């Protein structure tokens, strides 16, 4: 069964559409990531699902029921906010109990569920503290416990890791994902960070300008981007796009290799002038331009340092480079994928 279904959701602020017709189905137990640049409408879309914003048009179904007109509390979804939104005047225990109290759950039941949620997230020893006495990571767990305690149909997360430092972010990413798999909770996760999206999502919806550009597994999004936007938004460095015959060709930097690394004949050859190269330890990023194409278009190659001869990438010289045919992607003049042109 589908936990969350949206049909052609539109949200306009005045005349400006923030969400411009998003249709999506999130099956039970799926970890769906909404990925897009800031201002693309992904947070607005999430707020529509939980009922903090009302869509201008379109239908929203949660657990099979149309909930267009229902207030947030009747929708059975929980949301975790970017800055967590913990209640500063309540102890951790009362923070977690709050969603149950609003539902008039009996007192003993509340105590049991708070126990369960805090056990699940390993925050039992923090129950009597106030939010200001917690570290960033602990706050996040409390927020998660508060979201879970009602056992929602779906959990909505709005950039939950953006307030953590880089190191904590990596471990929190693993933790949330492992946790979600253990509980099997339908999760919609908003982020602008492609590493989070690729690493955590069962599926990713790439959103731009209030529209879904592509929905797919991380592999599909990366290997078979539906259009130029997805191709250049996902991947660091992004896919190289070179205009050709009104359309464009694209290839990932890691597929752009010195010709002598090719072991068969199924490749397209390019003459590559290396301008600069960055050694990053596990990889080497080489910047330059390709002969026969726009000389302002910078092309990058991501090379495994151990397997690349320094001579074949010496800056200031032209070198024979190649892309396997299987790794070539083609786009038409509107930026959509085509099989070939």
């Amino acid at each position, binding site marked *: 069964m589908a936990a969350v279904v949206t049909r052609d959701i539109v949200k306009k602020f005045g005349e400006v559409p923030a969400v411009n017709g998003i249709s999506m189905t999130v099956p039970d137990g799926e970890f769906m990531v909404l990925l897009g640049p800031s201002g693309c409408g992904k947070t607005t879309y999430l707020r529509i699902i939980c009922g*903090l914003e009302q869509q201008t048009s379109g239908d929203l179904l949660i657990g099979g029921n149309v909930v267009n007109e229902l207030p*947030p*509390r009747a929708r059975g979804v929980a949301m975790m906010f970017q800055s967590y*939104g913990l209640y*500063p*005047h309540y102890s951790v225990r009362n923070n977690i109990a709050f969603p149950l109290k*609003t539902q008039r759950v009996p007192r003993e039941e509340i105590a049991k569920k708070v126990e369960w949620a805090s056990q699940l997230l390993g925050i039992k020893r923090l129950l009597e503290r106030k939010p200001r006495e917690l570290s960033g990571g602990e706050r996040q767990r409390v927020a998660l416990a508060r979201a879970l305690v009602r056992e929602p149909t779906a959990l909505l997360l709005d950039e939950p890791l953006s307030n953590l430092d880089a190191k904590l972010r990596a471990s929190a990413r693993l933790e949330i994902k492992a946790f979600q798999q253990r509980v099997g909770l339908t999760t919609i996760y908003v982020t602008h960070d492609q590493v989070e999206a690729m690493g955590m999502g069962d599926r990713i919806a790439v959103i731009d300008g209030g529209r879904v550009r592509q929905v797919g597994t991380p592999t599909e999004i990366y290997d078979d981007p539906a259009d130029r936007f997805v191709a250049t938004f996902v991947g660091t460095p992004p896919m190289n796009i070179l205009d050709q015959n009104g359309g464009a060709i694209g290839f990932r930097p890691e597929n752009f290799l010195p010709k002598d690394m090719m072991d068969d004949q199924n490749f397209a050859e390019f003459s590559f002038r290396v301008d600069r190269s960055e050694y990053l330890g596990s990889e080497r990023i080489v910047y330059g331009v390709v002969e026969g194409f726009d000389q302002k278009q910078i092309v990058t190659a991501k090379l495994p340092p151990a397997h690349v001869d320094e001579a074949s990438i010496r800056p200031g010289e032209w070198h024979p480079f190649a892309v396997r045919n299987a790794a070539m992607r083609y786009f038409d003049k509107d930026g959509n994928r085509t099989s070939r042109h």
Partner: protein
Amino acid sequence: MVAIADSVPKPVSRFRFILDRRDVLGALFVAPAILYVLLLVGVPFLMAVYYSLSAYTIYDPSWSFVGLSNFADILEDPTFQRTLWNTFIFTFGSQLLGLVLGKFGALLLLRPFPGRKLVRAVIILPWAVPVALATVAWQWMFDSLYSVINWTMIALGLIDRANAPNWLGNPDLAMLSIIVVNGWRFFPFAIVIFLAGITAVPQDVIDAATVDGAGFWRRNYQIILPMILPIMTIGLVFGIVFTFTDLSIVFLMTNGGPVGATSVLGFAGFQTGIVSGDVSHGAAISLFMLPVLLVIVVVMLRFIRRREI
């Protein structure tokens, strides 16, 4: 190398850069304020203490130390007891009214609507209008013959002309009247305090409460109100101190009447000390406010320190 000229060391005055020194410049800037407080608050206060411990009247301006007997006198005086009680009723009644009006006003003004900026500006008026002017206007509204309030209620058929309330003539209604006027004067201040407090509550917290299932009342009274309690208490401390020591509305509107029903400490002190010339008892009445206010303020400040979030 040829020396072009020997530089002549210029004697630098020790005071040349004196104003660059933080401690000197700071003291200089603060001095007027300290002087002002010492002369206009400190000296009168010490004089009041001196008067309250003496038998000083304008008919017998002599210094004769009588200890705390002035305080004993007023404490035994039933009029003073009534006045003290009135002061509490007046202060807390009008603060409560102001807070309720302020809370609702702030909630209304938080919602965007056309002309909100204008309304926000206009609503400050009760606070900005000179108290004398405002009180005279209210006096007309409460007048026994020309009361607009009574006229409206008669026109609406709520009361009939024969039973029209005599707002300033009935002891209870007179107290209610001055409470209404003071609450009306205080509420724009309360609105400002509430607006500042509510705007400072992070939107994420309010959104979280909404998604967690809290409706309007629960959101307001279990989340927002506790979070703005500290700033609200500060506002209330100001309101209480100003109202407790105020005499202008009583003086202008009821003159303490009818039969002392609206007499408050400030007014009684003024009547006894200045109008009747019994300076020592007047000073004792006025000084009586000090310990009462001190206790109230200390209790309230301790309360918010414990609630610190």
